[in-house]
Protein backbone atom coordinates (compact mmCIF):
# COMPACT_ATOMS: atom_id res chain seq x y z
CA UNK A 1 0.00 0.00 0.00
CA UNK A 2 1.24 3.47 -0.89
CA UNK A 3 1.96 5.51 2.25
CA UNK A 4 0.24 8.81 3.02
CA UNK A 5 2.81 11.55 3.58
CA UNK A 6 1.63 13.75 6.43
CA UNK A 7 3.27 17.06 7.41
CA UNK A 8 2.84 17.79 11.11
CA UNK A 9 3.46 21.26 12.58
CA UNK A 10 6.38 21.24 15.03
CA UNK A 11 5.49 22.12 18.61
CA UNK A 12 2.63 21.61 21.04
CA UNK A 13 -0.05 21.77 18.35
CA UNK A 14 1.73 19.08 16.34
CA UNK A 15 1.91 16.77 19.37
CA UNK A 16 -1.86 17.14 19.84
CA UNK A 17 -2.49 16.47 16.14
CA UNK A 18 -0.31 13.37 16.23
CA UNK A 19 -2.23 12.09 19.26
CA UNK A 20 -5.50 12.55 17.33
CA UNK A 21 -4.21 10.66 14.28
CA UNK A 22 -2.82 7.88 16.48
CA UNK A 23 -6.12 7.55 18.36
CA UNK A 24 -7.96 7.54 15.04
CA UNK A 25 -6.07 4.41 13.98
CA UNK A 26 -2.90 5.77 12.37
CA UNK A 27 -0.19 5.22 15.00
CA UNK A 28 3.55 5.45 14.41
CA UNK A 29 5.63 4.07 17.32
CA UNK A 30 8.96 5.17 15.81
CA UNK A 31 8.04 8.85 16.07
CA UNK A 32 8.14 8.58 19.88
CA UNK A 33 11.71 7.27 19.95
CA UNK A 34 14.43 9.78 20.70
CA UNK A 35 16.85 10.37 17.83
CA UNK A 36 17.65 12.60 14.91
CA UNK A 37 15.41 11.00 12.33
CA UNK A 38 13.27 13.39 10.35
CA UNK A 39 10.79 11.01 8.78
CA UNK A 40 8.79 8.32 10.58
CA UNK A 41 6.90 5.50 8.91
CA UNK A 42 4.40 2.89 9.86
CA UNK A 43 3.70 0.74 6.84
CA UNK A 44 1.00 -1.19 8.62
CA UNK A 45 -0.99 1.96 9.31
CA UNK A 46 -0.07 3.35 5.86
CA UNK A 47 1.39 6.62 7.16
CA UNK A 48 4.66 8.54 6.94
CA UNK A 49 4.87 11.51 9.29
CA UNK A 50 7.36 14.38 9.31
CA UNK A 51 7.66 17.52 11.39
CA UNK A 52 7.92 20.88 9.65
CA UNK A 53 7.77 24.52 10.72
CA UNK A 54 4.04 25.32 11.20
CA UNK A 55 4.05 28.12 8.61
CA UNK A 56 5.63 25.74 6.04
CA UNK A 57 3.00 22.98 6.27
CA UNK A 58 0.79 24.49 3.57
CA UNK A 59 3.79 24.82 1.22
CA UNK A 60 4.68 21.13 1.65
CA UNK A 61 1.06 20.20 0.94
CA UNK A 62 0.46 22.57 -1.97
CA UNK A 63 3.69 21.44 -3.65
CA UNK A 64 2.84 17.78 -3.15
CA UNK A 65 5.75 16.87 -0.83
CA UNK A 66 3.03 16.00 1.67
CA UNK A 67 -0.35 14.52 0.77
CA UNK A 68 -1.91 15.83 3.98
CA UNK A 69 -0.94 18.35 6.62
CA UNK A 70 -2.27 20.32 9.52
CA UNK A 71 -2.09 24.11 9.40
CA UNK A 72 -3.68 26.97 11.28
CA UNK A 73 -6.46 28.87 9.55
CA UNK A 74 -4.33 32.02 9.94
CA UNK A 75 -1.66 30.52 7.66
CA UNK A 76 -4.25 29.38 5.13
CA UNK A 77 -5.85 32.83 4.98
CA UNK A 78 -2.52 34.59 4.70
CA UNK A 79 -0.87 32.40 2.05
CA UNK A 80 -4.04 31.16 0.29
CA UNK A 81 -2.55 27.88 -0.90
CA UNK A 82 -4.44 25.95 -3.58
CA UNK A 83 -5.41 22.98 -1.40
CA UNK A 84 -8.47 21.19 -0.01
CA UNK A 85 -9.43 22.09 3.55
CA UNK A 86 -11.00 18.84 4.69
CA UNK A 87 -11.54 19.15 8.45
CA UNK A 88 -11.59 21.66 11.26
CA UNK A 89 -9.76 19.75 13.99
CA UNK A 90 -11.09 22.10 16.68
CA UNK A 91 -7.70 22.37 18.38
CA UNK A 92 -5.18 25.21 18.52
CA UNK A 93 -8.14 27.54 18.84
CA UNK A 94 -7.43 31.24 19.17
CA UNK A 95 -8.51 34.39 17.35
CA UNK A 96 -7.04 36.91 14.97
CA UNK A 97 -7.75 40.28 16.51
CA UNK A 98 -7.09 44.00 16.27
CA UNK A 99 -5.41 45.31 19.42
CA UNK A 100 -4.12 48.68 20.54
CA UNK A 101 -3.00 50.59 23.61
CA UNK A 102 -5.79 50.88 26.16
CA UNK A 103 -6.09 54.64 25.64
CA UNK A 104 -6.12 54.43 21.81
CA UNK A 105 -8.92 56.37 20.10
CA UNK A 106 -9.34 55.78 16.36
CA UNK A 107 -9.46 58.89 14.20
CA UNK A 108 -11.22 57.92 10.95
CA UNK A 109 -9.92 61.13 9.39
CA UNK A 110 -6.38 59.78 9.11
CA UNK A 111 -4.74 56.67 7.74
CA UNK A 112 -4.55 53.90 10.33
CA UNK A 113 -1.07 52.42 10.83
CA UNK A 114 -1.38 48.65 11.25
CA UNK A 115 1.55 46.46 12.34
CA UNK A 116 1.16 42.78 11.56
CA UNK A 117 2.72 39.55 10.44
CA UNK A 118 -0.49 38.84 8.49
CA UNK A 119 -0.52 41.57 5.84
CA UNK A 120 -3.05 39.90 3.57
CA UNK A 121 -5.55 39.18 6.34
CA UNK A 122 -5.22 42.71 7.73
CA UNK A 123 -5.55 44.30 4.27
CA UNK A 124 -8.67 42.38 3.33
CA UNK A 125 -10.22 42.99 6.76
CA UNK A 126 -9.82 46.76 6.51
CA UNK A 127 -10.75 46.74 2.81
CA UNK A 128 -14.07 45.15 3.76
CA UNK A 129 -14.56 48.03 6.22
CA UNK A 130 -13.50 50.65 3.68
CA UNK A 131 -10.77 51.94 6.02
CA UNK A 132 -7.57 53.43 4.62
CA UNK A 133 -4.56 51.79 6.28
CA UNK A 134 -0.79 51.69 6.12
CA UNK A 135 0.50 48.14 6.64
CA UNK A 136 3.75 47.79 8.57
CA UNK A 137 4.92 44.23 8.04
CA UNK A 138 6.79 42.80 11.03
CA UNK A 139 8.08 39.29 11.62
CA UNK A 140 7.81 39.14 15.39
CA UNK A 141 7.24 41.04 18.67
CA UNK A 142 4.24 42.71 17.08
CA UNK A 143 3.04 43.99 20.48
CA UNK A 144 6.00 46.37 20.64
CA UNK A 145 4.80 48.40 17.65
CA UNK A 146 1.97 50.41 19.28
CA UNK A 147 3.92 50.76 22.53
CA UNK A 148 6.82 52.41 20.70
CA UNK A 149 4.56 54.43 18.43
CA UNK A 150 5.49 52.46 15.31
CA UNK A 151 1.81 51.70 14.66
CA UNK A 152 -1.64 52.67 15.93
CA UNK A 153 -2.94 49.10 16.11
CA UNK A 154 -1.76 45.54 15.55
CA UNK A 155 -3.47 42.61 13.85
CA UNK A 156 -2.24 39.45 15.51
CA UNK A 157 -3.17 36.11 17.01
CA UNK A 158 -4.55 36.29 20.53
CA UNK A 159 -4.73 33.14 22.64
CA UNK A 160 -5.33 34.07 26.28
CA UNK A 161 -4.67 37.79 25.96
CA UNK A 162 -2.08 37.66 28.77
CA UNK A 163 0.73 39.25 26.69
CA UNK A 164 -1.58 42.06 25.64
CA UNK A 165 -2.70 42.73 29.25
CA UNK A 166 0.86 42.71 30.54
CA UNK A 167 1.78 45.36 27.97
CA UNK A 168 -1.22 47.57 28.58
CA UNK A 169 -2.83 46.59 25.26
CA UNK A 170 -6.42 45.58 24.66
CA UNK A 171 -8.41 43.78 21.95
CA UNK A 172 -10.55 46.21 19.92
CA UNK A 173 -12.14 43.86 17.40
CA UNK A 174 -12.06 40.18 16.51
CA UNK A 175 -11.08 39.58 12.86
CA UNK A 176 -11.62 35.83 12.63
CA UNK A 177 -11.55 32.75 14.88
CA UNK A 178 -8.60 30.44 14.21
CA UNK A 179 -8.14 26.70 14.64
CA UNK A 180 -6.08 23.88 13.12
CA UNK A 181 -7.29 22.50 9.77
CA UNK A 182 -6.55 19.22 8.02
CA UNK A 183 -5.51 20.09 4.48
CA UNK A 184 -4.84 17.93 1.41
CA UNK A 185 -2.93 18.33 -1.83
CA UNK A 186 -5.44 18.41 -4.69
CA UNK A 187 -3.60 15.92 -6.88
CA UNK A 188 -2.96 13.53 -3.98
CA UNK A 189 -6.65 13.65 -3.19
CA UNK A 190 -7.33 12.23 -6.67
CA UNK A 191 -4.64 9.56 -6.73
CA UNK A 192 -4.84 8.45 -3.08
CA UNK A 193 -8.54 9.11 -2.66
CA UNK A 194 -9.54 5.96 -0.79
CA UNK A 195 -6.73 6.19 1.79
CA UNK A 196 -7.19 9.95 2.34
CA UNK A 197 -10.94 9.49 2.63
CA UNK A 198 -10.43 6.74 5.18
CA UNK A 199 -8.12 8.87 7.34
CA UNK A 200 -10.49 11.86 7.17
CA UNK A 201 -13.49 9.70 8.04
CA UNK A 202 -11.76 8.03 11.01
CA UNK A 203 -10.45 11.37 12.30
CA UNK A 204 -13.83 13.09 11.94
CA UNK A 205 -15.52 10.20 13.73
CA UNK A 206 -13.04 10.37 16.61
CA UNK A 207 -13.50 14.13 16.97
CA UNK A 208 -17.27 13.72 16.93
CA UNK A 209 -17.13 11.06 19.65
CA UNK A 210 -15.04 13.39 21.79
CA UNK A 211 -17.39 16.35 21.54
Amino acid at each position, binding site marked *: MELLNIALPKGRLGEKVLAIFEDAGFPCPSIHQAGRKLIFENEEAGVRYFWVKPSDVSIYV*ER*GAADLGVAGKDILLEYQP*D*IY*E*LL*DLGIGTCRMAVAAKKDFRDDPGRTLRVATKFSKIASSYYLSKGRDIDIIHLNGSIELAPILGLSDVIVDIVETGATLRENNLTVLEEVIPISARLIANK*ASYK*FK*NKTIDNLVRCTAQLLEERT
Partner: protein
Amino acid sequence: MTNLSAEAFSASLRSLYSRYGYCRYKMNKFEEYDLYARNKDFLICDSVITFTDVDGKLMALKPDVTLSMVKNTRDEPGIRKLYYNENVYRVCKGSQGFKEIMQMGLEAMGEIDEYCIYEVLKLAAESLNSTEKCCILEISHLGLLSSAICHAGIRPEEHRQVIRCIGEKNLHQLQSICVRMGIPQQEINLLRRLASLYGTPQEVLPVVQSLLTGIADEQELSQFLRIIDALNAGKFRDMIRIDFSAVSDPQYYSGFVFKGFAQGVPSAILSGGQYDSMMRKMKRQAGAIGFAVYLDILEQYSPVQTDYDVDTLLIYDESCSIPEIEAMAREATTESILLQRQIPPGIRYRRLITMGKGRIP
Protein backbone atom coordinates in the same frame (compact mmCIF):
# COMPACT_ATOMS: atom_id res chain seq x y z
CA MET B 1 5.50 11.77 -19.95
CA THR B 2 8.04 9.51 -18.34
CA ASN B 3 10.76 10.35 -20.83
CA LEU B 4 8.88 12.63 -23.18
CA SER B 5 10.31 16.12 -23.49
CA ALA B 6 8.06 19.19 -23.54
CA GLU B 7 8.88 19.66 -27.24
CA ALA B 8 7.92 16.09 -28.10
CA PHE B 9 4.77 16.40 -26.01
CA SER B 10 3.69 19.64 -27.67
CA ALA B 11 4.40 18.08 -31.09
CA SER B 12 2.14 15.14 -30.23
CA LEU B 13 -0.60 17.54 -29.07
CA ARG B 14 -0.31 19.61 -32.26
CA SER B 15 -0.69 16.48 -34.33
CA LEU B 16 -3.65 15.33 -32.18
CA TYR B 17 -5.53 18.62 -32.52
CA SER B 18 -4.81 18.83 -36.26
CA ARG B 19 -6.18 15.30 -36.72
CA TYR B 20 -9.50 16.53 -35.33
CA GLY B 21 -9.55 19.48 -37.73
CA TYR B 22 -8.50 22.18 -35.27
CA CYS B 23 -6.53 24.93 -37.03
CA ARG B 24 -3.44 26.53 -35.58
CA TYR B 25 -4.12 30.06 -34.37
CA LYS B 26 -1.03 32.23 -34.31
CA MET B 27 -1.24 35.58 -32.67
CA ASN B 28 0.71 38.68 -31.88
CA LYS B 29 2.81 38.73 -28.71
CA PHE B 30 1.20 42.02 -27.67
CA GLU B 31 -2.34 42.98 -26.85
CA GLU B 32 -3.97 46.20 -25.66
CA TYR B 33 -3.71 46.32 -21.88
CA ASP B 34 -7.33 47.44 -21.61
CA LEU B 35 -8.51 43.89 -22.49
CA TYR B 36 -6.81 42.45 -19.41
CA ALA B 37 -7.71 45.38 -17.16
CA ARG B 38 -11.40 44.72 -17.91
CA ASN B 39 -11.08 40.97 -17.31
CA LYS B 40 -8.56 40.73 -14.48
CA ASP B 41 -10.49 38.01 -12.65
CA PHE B 42 -10.19 35.73 -15.68
CA LEU B 43 -6.40 35.76 -15.48
CA ILE B 44 -4.47 33.30 -13.32
CA CYS B 45 -2.48 36.25 -11.95
CA ASP B 46 -3.27 39.93 -12.29
CA SER B 47 0.27 41.14 -12.94
CA VAL B 48 0.85 42.06 -16.58
CA ILE B 49 3.97 43.38 -18.31
CA THR B 50 2.96 46.65 -19.95
CA PHE B 51 4.63 49.18 -22.22
CA THR B 52 3.59 52.23 -24.20
CA ASP B 53 3.55 51.62 -27.95
CA VAL B 54 4.82 54.21 -30.45
CA ASP B 55 1.28 55.51 -30.94
CA GLY B 56 0.84 56.05 -27.19
CA LYS B 57 -1.37 53.00 -26.60
CA LEU B 58 -0.74 51.04 -23.42
CA MET B 59 0.10 47.52 -24.53
CA ALA B 60 0.74 44.28 -22.66
CA LEU B 61 2.76 41.15 -23.27
CA LYS B 62 0.08 38.46 -23.42
CA PRO B 63 -0.53 36.87 -20.00
CA ASP B 64 -3.32 34.72 -21.49
CA VAL B 65 -4.39 33.39 -24.87
CA THR B 66 -8.13 32.78 -24.57
CA LEU B 67 -9.07 36.44 -24.04
CA SER B 68 -7.13 37.48 -27.15
CA MET B 69 -8.72 34.72 -29.20
CA VAL B 70 -12.20 35.76 -28.13
CA LYS B 71 -11.41 39.40 -28.88
CA ASN B 72 -9.82 38.73 -32.26
CA THR B 73 -12.34 36.29 -33.72
CA ARG B 74 -15.84 37.06 -34.99
CA ASP B 75 -19.18 35.34 -34.60
CA GLU B 76 -19.60 33.06 -37.61
CA PRO B 77 -22.08 30.32 -38.48
CA GLY B 78 -21.04 26.87 -37.29
CA ILE B 79 -18.19 26.16 -34.89
CA ARG B 80 -14.70 27.58 -35.23
CA LYS B 81 -12.15 25.07 -33.95
CA LEU B 82 -8.72 26.43 -33.15
CA TYR B 83 -5.63 25.43 -31.23
CA TYR B 84 -2.68 27.48 -30.09
CA ASN B 85 0.88 26.99 -28.91
CA GLU B 86 2.02 30.30 -27.54
CA ASN B 87 4.28 31.83 -24.95
CA VAL B 88 2.53 33.83 -22.26
CA TYR B 89 4.10 36.10 -19.63
CA ARG B 90 2.93 36.01 -16.06
CA VAL B 91 4.01 35.87 -12.46
CA CYS B 92 3.66 32.33 -11.15
CA LYS B 93 2.48 31.82 -7.59
CA GLY B 94 5.37 31.94 -5.16
CA SER B 95 7.81 33.30 -7.74
CA GLN B 96 9.35 36.74 -7.46
CA GLY B 97 9.26 37.76 -11.10
CA PHE B 98 7.66 37.27 -14.50
CA LYS B 99 8.16 34.07 -16.41
CA GLU B 100 7.76 33.11 -20.02
CA ILE B 101 5.47 30.10 -20.08
CA MET B 102 4.72 27.90 -23.05
CA GLN B 103 1.00 27.21 -23.09
CA MET B 104 -0.92 25.00 -25.41
CA GLY B 105 -4.64 24.59 -25.73
CA LEU B 106 -7.66 24.57 -27.93
CA GLU B 107 -10.87 26.51 -28.20
CA ALA B 108 -14.16 25.79 -29.95
CA MET B 109 -16.29 28.90 -30.51
CA GLY B 110 -19.68 29.18 -32.15
CA GLU B 111 -22.86 27.15 -31.99
CA ILE B 112 -21.55 24.72 -29.38
CA ASP B 113 -23.60 21.55 -29.35
CA GLU B 114 -23.55 18.35 -27.31
CA TYR B 115 -21.12 16.59 -29.62
CA CYS B 116 -18.70 19.52 -29.55
CA ILE B 117 -18.62 19.48 -25.72
CA TYR B 118 -18.00 15.73 -25.84
CA GLU B 119 -15.24 16.18 -28.42
CA VAL B 120 -13.42 18.83 -26.37
CA LEU B 121 -13.63 16.66 -23.24
CA LYS B 122 -12.39 13.69 -25.25
CA LEU B 123 -9.48 15.75 -26.57
CA ALA B 124 -8.68 16.86 -23.01
CA ALA B 125 -8.56 13.18 -22.04
CA GLU B 126 -6.47 12.36 -25.15
CA SER B 127 -4.07 15.20 -24.24
CA LEU B 128 -3.63 13.77 -20.76
CA ASN B 129 -3.13 10.33 -22.25
CA SER B 130 -0.30 11.71 -24.38
CA THR B 131 1.72 12.47 -21.24
CA GLU B 132 2.27 8.70 -20.87
CA LYS B 133 1.55 9.14 -17.16
CA CYS B 134 -1.35 7.86 -15.10
CA CYS B 135 -3.86 10.71 -15.38
CA ILE B 136 -7.24 11.78 -14.09
CA LEU B 137 -9.71 14.10 -15.80
CA GLU B 138 -12.11 15.48 -13.21
CA ILE B 139 -15.31 16.94 -14.51
CA SER B 140 -17.82 19.26 -12.92
CA HIS B 141 -20.73 21.37 -14.15
CA LEU B 142 -21.15 24.93 -12.93
CA GLY B 143 -24.70 25.15 -14.27
CA LEU B 144 -25.81 22.19 -12.17
CA LEU B 145 -23.92 23.49 -9.14
CA SER B 146 -25.45 26.96 -9.56
CA SER B 147 -28.94 25.40 -9.72
CA ALA B 148 -28.34 23.74 -6.34
CA ILE B 149 -26.97 26.98 -4.89
CA CYS B 150 -29.95 28.99 -6.17
CA HIS B 151 -32.36 26.29 -4.97
CA ALA B 152 -30.84 26.62 -1.48
CA GLY B 153 -31.91 30.27 -1.51
CA ILE B 154 -28.41 31.75 -1.52
CA ARG B 155 -28.36 35.30 -2.85
CA PRO B 156 -26.40 35.88 -6.10
CA GLU B 157 -23.88 38.15 -4.34
CA GLU B 158 -23.06 35.30 -1.95
CA HIS B 159 -22.59 32.61 -4.64
CA ARG B 160 -18.84 33.26 -4.86
CA GLN B 161 -18.30 32.56 -1.15
CA VAL B 162 -20.22 29.30 -1.38
CA ILE B 163 -18.47 28.25 -4.59
CA ARG B 164 -15.09 28.93 -2.94
CA CYS B 165 -15.97 26.60 -0.02
CA ILE B 166 -17.11 23.92 -2.47
CA GLY B 167 -13.85 24.37 -4.41
CA GLU B 168 -11.87 23.73 -1.22
CA LYS B 169 -14.11 20.84 -0.11
CA ASN B 170 -14.39 22.97 3.00
CA LEU B 171 -17.57 21.49 4.45
CA HIS B 172 -17.22 23.04 7.91
CA GLN B 173 -17.00 26.56 6.50
CA LEU B 174 -19.76 25.85 4.00
CA GLN B 175 -21.95 24.79 6.92
CA SER B 176 -21.15 27.85 9.02
CA ILE B 177 -21.63 30.45 6.26
CA CYS B 178 -24.89 28.83 5.13
CA VAL B 179 -26.18 28.79 8.72
CA ARG B 180 -25.24 32.47 8.99
CA MET B 181 -27.21 33.13 5.78
CA GLY B 182 -30.23 31.36 7.28
CA ILE B 183 -30.24 28.49 4.77
CA PRO B 184 -32.30 25.44 5.90
CA GLN B 185 -30.16 22.44 6.98
CA GLN B 186 -31.71 20.21 4.30
CA GLU B 187 -30.40 22.54 1.59
CA ILE B 188 -27.01 22.83 3.29
CA ASN B 189 -26.81 19.04 3.32
CA LEU B 190 -27.40 18.96 -0.43
CA LEU B 191 -24.55 21.42 -1.02
CA ARG B 192 -22.27 19.52 1.39
CA ARG B 193 -23.08 16.29 -0.43
CA LEU B 194 -22.27 17.84 -3.82
CA ALA B 195 -19.00 19.32 -2.51
CA SER B 196 -17.82 16.02 -1.09
CA LEU B 197 -18.81 13.84 -4.08
CA TYR B 198 -15.82 12.30 -5.79
CA GLY B 199 -15.50 9.16 -7.84
CA THR B 200 -15.92 7.39 -11.13
CA PRO B 201 -19.07 8.03 -13.18
CA GLN B 202 -20.38 4.57 -12.17
CA GLU B 203 -20.06 5.51 -8.50
CA VAL B 204 -21.19 9.11 -8.65
CA LEU B 205 -23.68 9.64 -11.51
CA PRO B 206 -26.61 7.82 -9.82
CA VAL B 207 -26.07 10.03 -6.75
CA VAL B 208 -25.88 13.19 -8.89
CA GLN B 209 -29.07 12.19 -10.64
CA SER B 210 -30.96 11.56 -7.41
CA LEU B 211 -29.65 14.75 -5.75
CA LEU B 212 -30.35 17.10 -8.64
CA THR B 213 -33.51 15.75 -10.24
CA GLY B 214 -36.21 18.37 -9.73
CA ILE B 215 -33.58 20.94 -8.71
CA ALA B 216 -31.43 21.39 -11.79
CA ASP B 217 -32.67 22.19 -15.28
CA GLU B 218 -33.84 18.86 -16.69
CA GLN B 219 -32.19 19.34 -20.09
CA GLU B 220 -28.89 20.45 -18.54
CA LEU B 221 -28.84 17.47 -16.18
CA SER B 222 -29.66 14.94 -18.87
CA GLN B 223 -27.06 16.44 -21.23
CA PHE B 224 -24.46 16.18 -18.46
CA LEU B 225 -25.34 12.53 -17.87
CA ARG B 226 -25.30 11.69 -21.61
CA ILE B 227 -21.92 13.30 -22.22
CA ILE B 228 -20.31 11.64 -19.19
CA ASP B 229 -21.84 8.30 -20.20
CA ALA B 230 -20.39 8.67 -23.70
CA LEU B 231 -16.91 9.48 -22.35
CA ASN B 232 -17.14 6.66 -19.89
CA ALA B 233 -17.99 4.20 -22.63
CA GLY B 234 -14.72 4.89 -24.45
CA LYS B 235 -11.08 4.16 -23.71
CA PHE B 236 -10.91 6.86 -21.03
CA ARG B 237 -13.16 5.01 -18.61
CA ASP B 238 -10.43 4.71 -15.96
CA MET B 239 -9.48 8.36 -16.25
CA ILE B 240 -12.82 10.09 -15.70
CA ARG B 241 -13.86 11.32 -12.25
CA ILE B 242 -16.82 13.46 -11.26
CA ASP B 243 -15.95 16.16 -8.76
CA PHE B 244 -18.11 19.24 -8.21
CA SER B 245 -15.25 20.90 -6.35
CA ALA B 246 -13.63 21.53 -9.74
CA VAL B 247 -14.98 25.06 -9.97
CA SER B 248 -14.09 28.19 -11.89
CA ASP B 249 -15.22 31.80 -11.68
CA PRO B 250 -18.94 31.87 -12.62
CA GLN B 251 -18.45 35.38 -14.07
CA TYR B 252 -16.70 33.66 -16.98
CA TYR B 253 -17.64 29.98 -16.89
CA SER B 254 -21.09 28.45 -17.06
CA GLY B 255 -21.47 24.76 -17.98
CA PHE B 256 -18.86 22.01 -17.97
CA VAL B 257 -15.59 22.75 -16.17
CA PHE B 258 -12.75 20.28 -15.91
CA LYS B 259 -9.21 19.80 -14.70
CA GLY B 260 -6.55 17.25 -15.55
CA PHE B 261 -4.04 15.76 -13.12
CA ALA B 262 -1.03 13.52 -13.73
CA GLN B 263 0.47 11.21 -11.14
CA GLY B 264 3.52 12.77 -9.52
CA VAL B 265 2.53 16.33 -10.44
CA PRO B 266 1.10 18.26 -7.46
CA SER B 267 -1.24 20.59 -9.35
CA ALA B 268 -3.54 20.50 -12.37
CA ILE B 269 -1.74 20.26 -15.72
CA LEU B 270 -4.87 20.92 -17.76
CA SER B 271 -7.78 23.21 -17.07
CA GLY B 272 -10.80 24.17 -19.11
CA GLY B 273 -14.49 24.65 -19.44
CA GLN B 274 -17.40 26.31 -21.16
CA TYR B 275 -16.96 30.06 -20.97
CA ASP B 276 -20.24 31.33 -22.41
CA SER B 277 -20.49 33.91 -19.61
CA MET B 278 -17.21 35.44 -20.70
CA MET B 279 -18.42 35.53 -24.32
CA ARG B 280 -21.54 37.43 -23.19
CA LYS B 281 -19.35 39.78 -21.16
CA MET B 282 -17.39 40.51 -24.35
CA LYS B 283 -20.62 41.07 -26.30
CA ARG B 284 -20.30 37.85 -28.28
CA GLN B 285 -23.33 35.80 -29.29
CA ALA B 286 -21.42 32.53 -29.68
CA GLY B 287 -20.84 29.88 -27.07
CA ALA B 288 -17.34 28.60 -26.33
CA ILE B 289 -15.46 25.74 -24.72
CA GLY B 290 -11.75 25.08 -24.49
CA PHE B 291 -8.83 24.11 -22.35
CA ALA B 292 -5.19 24.91 -21.73
CA VAL B 293 -2.36 22.46 -21.06
CA TYR B 294 0.33 23.78 -18.72
CA LEU B 295 3.49 22.48 -20.36
CA ASP B 296 5.70 24.31 -17.86
CA ILE B 297 4.25 22.43 -14.86
CA LEU B 298 4.44 19.15 -16.69
CA GLU B 299 8.05 19.72 -17.69
CA GLN B 300 9.01 20.76 -14.15
CA TYR B 301 7.83 17.45 -12.76
CA SER B 302 8.90 15.24 -15.67
CA PRO B 303 12.62 15.78 -15.99
CA VAL B 304 14.20 13.94 -18.90
CA GLN B 305 16.93 12.13 -17.01
CA THR B 306 19.90 10.72 -18.87
CA ASP B 307 22.97 9.05 -17.46
CA TYR B 308 25.26 10.86 -19.93
CA ASP B 309 25.51 14.35 -21.43
CA VAL B 310 26.89 12.82 -24.60
CA ASP B 311 27.30 9.25 -25.78
CA THR B 312 30.83 9.65 -27.19
CA LEU B 313 33.47 12.24 -26.47
CA LEU B 314 36.15 12.46 -29.15
CA ILE B 315 39.35 14.30 -28.21
CA TYR B 316 41.64 15.35 -31.07
CA ASP B 317 44.78 17.49 -31.15
CA GLU B 318 46.65 19.76 -33.55
CA SER B 319 48.26 16.79 -35.32
CA CYS B 320 44.86 15.60 -36.64
CA SER B 321 43.61 16.81 -40.01
CA ILE B 322 39.95 17.58 -40.75
CA PRO B 323 39.52 14.41 -42.92
CA GLU B 324 41.05 12.27 -40.14
CA ILE B 325 38.76 13.76 -37.49
CA GLU B 326 35.74 13.38 -39.79
CA ALA B 327 36.63 9.74 -40.51
CA MET B 328 37.05 8.92 -36.82
CA ALA B 329 33.72 10.57 -35.96
CA ARG B 330 32.01 8.56 -38.72
CA GLU B 331 33.56 5.30 -37.48
CA ALA B 332 32.42 5.91 -33.94
CA THR B 333 28.81 4.95 -34.86
CA THR B 334 27.22 6.52 -31.88
CA GLU B 335 23.99 8.24 -30.78
CA SER B 336 25.71 11.53 -30.14
CA ILE B 337 29.31 12.67 -30.41
CA LEU B 338 31.04 15.73 -29.01
CA LEU B 339 34.37 16.77 -30.60
CA GLN B 340 36.73 18.73 -28.35
CA ARG B 341 40.45 19.48 -27.91
CA GLN B 342 40.25 18.64 -24.20
CA ILE B 343 37.74 17.07 -21.85
CA PRO B 344 35.24 19.76 -20.74
CA PRO B 345 34.93 19.96 -16.93
CA GLY B 346 32.02 18.05 -15.40
CA ILE B 347 30.94 16.32 -18.62
CA ARG B 348 29.44 12.83 -18.38
CA TYR B 349 30.17 10.56 -21.38
CA ARG B 350 29.72 6.88 -22.03
CA ARG B 351 32.76 6.40 -24.25
CA LEU B 352 35.95 8.36 -24.75
CA ILE B 353 37.95 8.31 -27.99
CA THR B 354 41.24 10.13 -28.26
CA MET B 355 43.19 10.66 -31.45
CA GLY B 356 46.44 12.32 -32.37
CA LYS B 357 49.58 12.31 -30.19
CA GLY B 358 47.76 11.62 -26.93
CA ARG B 359 45.83 8.72 -28.44
CA ILE B 360 44.85 5.97 -26.04
CA PRO B 361 45.79 2.70 -27.70
